[in-house]
């Protein structure tokens, strides 16, 4: 377990692009959005746009989730040798979340400001990211695991996981909107937590099954 975490950490430090690129993409796409549709700034749509862009960013990052380990053979070594492959999968999902979702917790409020959301809503944005993004990493991991064996799995990955992201999008954007309107955010907090917990219950098993399928494809 600790050696797995250490490896993930070493890799994260050496492949900084995996952390920086999604953030850059998010900033860039926000900029494009605002320039293309200036009216959306400070409007009711801002929270929804923010979450949609976070979703797309996560989707781009997901394609790489297992690809490097798959291509190098590290993945097959993990499944052959790890005493509990389940833990290895969970570690990978956690690190993927740290390098994307957790970053969103910090970047999200800043983007909210760019999109003209009131400063009072920024804690709510951070909270929504914190509760919602784990579901994106977990459910996305399932899609990534069955598509990692394809040379071009990106589009199929999107088709598989985007519908599953919808509840997170609804309640994530809903939480921010509720905070903006000054009403209680508790229903959304519960809903997002529940969605992430359900995802946590199914994703590691499903991912493991998906990775085994992908490893058998060659």
């Amino acid at each position, binding site marked *: 377990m600790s050696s797995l975490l250490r490896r993930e950490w070493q890799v994260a430090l050496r492949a900084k692009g995996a952390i920086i690129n999604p953030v850059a993409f998010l900033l860039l796409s926000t900029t494009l959005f605002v320039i293309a549709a200036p009216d959306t700034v400070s409007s009711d749509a801002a929270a929804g746009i923010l979450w949609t862009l976070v979703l797309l960013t996560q989707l781009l990052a997901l394609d790489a989730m297992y690809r490097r380990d798959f291509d190098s053979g590290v993945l097959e070594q993990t499944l052959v040798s790890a005493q509990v492959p389940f833990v290895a999968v969970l570690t990978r999902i956690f690190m993927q979340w740290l390098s994307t979702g957790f970053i969103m917790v910090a970047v999200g409020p800043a983007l909210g400001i760019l999109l003209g959301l009131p400063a009072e809503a920024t804690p709510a944005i951070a909270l929504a990211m914190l509760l919602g993004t784990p579901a994106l990493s977990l459910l996305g991991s399932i899609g990534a695991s069955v598509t990692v064996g394809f040379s071009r799995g990106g589009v199929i990955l999107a088709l598989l996981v985007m519908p*599953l992201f919808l*509840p997170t999008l609804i*309640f994530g954007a*809903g939480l921010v909107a509720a905070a903006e309107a000054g009403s209680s955010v508790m229903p959304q907090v519960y809903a997002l937590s529940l*969605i992430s917990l359900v995802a946590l219950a199914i994703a590691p098993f499903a991912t493991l099954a998906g990775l085994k399928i992908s490893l058998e494809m060659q």
Partner: protein
Amino acid sequence: MLSASLKRLWHKLGSPRWFFALTESWVKVAGWSALVLLVWGTIWGLGFAPADYQQGNSFRIMYVHVPAAMLAQSLYIGMGVAGFIGLVWRMKLTDVAISACLPLGMVITALALFSGSVWGRPTWGSWWEWDGRTVSTLVLFFLYVGIYALREAIADQELRARASALIAMVGTINIPIIKYSVEWWNTLHQPASFGLTQKPAMPSEMWLPLLVMVLGFYAFAGFIVLVRMRTEILNRELGARWVRDWVQVRSER
């Protein structure tokens, strides 16, 4: 002793040959009942059911739309259950079932969306309204498309079976969450819109034909799925002796 006989039964259930022999008569039953129920329900619903006091005759699209929407979801859940059985007990027949349900489910979901759109024109005044049910059905369609794309991408039959079973299972677990969240979203954004089918106390002259149509749709789906499954079994078992024997018997008849 008990477990041995259970195991044998299980093997039997998973055996394509056994399934093929078993369903020989089922196909006819499902096919004929679909025909009778659909004709009966259509004539009743279109010709004899009273017109709606608010919507006039346009409500009659309900007799296609509601069964289609129900069936669309049932077929997906059916794929999820088949996927679960297939993954847990390694039963290969379940992939035949998934491959039979998938195209039918996609078409029926498209039909539900289309009929909803046609219904929406006179009712809401637009071809497309982002109503809660519409969105749920649309997402369901995307779920179907995802599995379809995945199946297209995997050449190996058994891996294709396992991957699509897994994704169908995950999708089925998520369907209630998606439905609930979309409903919540809908009440938030369109509190005023009235539901199409949630009429207070629909008179029995209106809902009885609907019931007949629903049954007819399910019988039709059963017929199509059985025929497709049987065709797929013949296709996959092409080299097996029992298939050759069966073909021989059929051609001599």
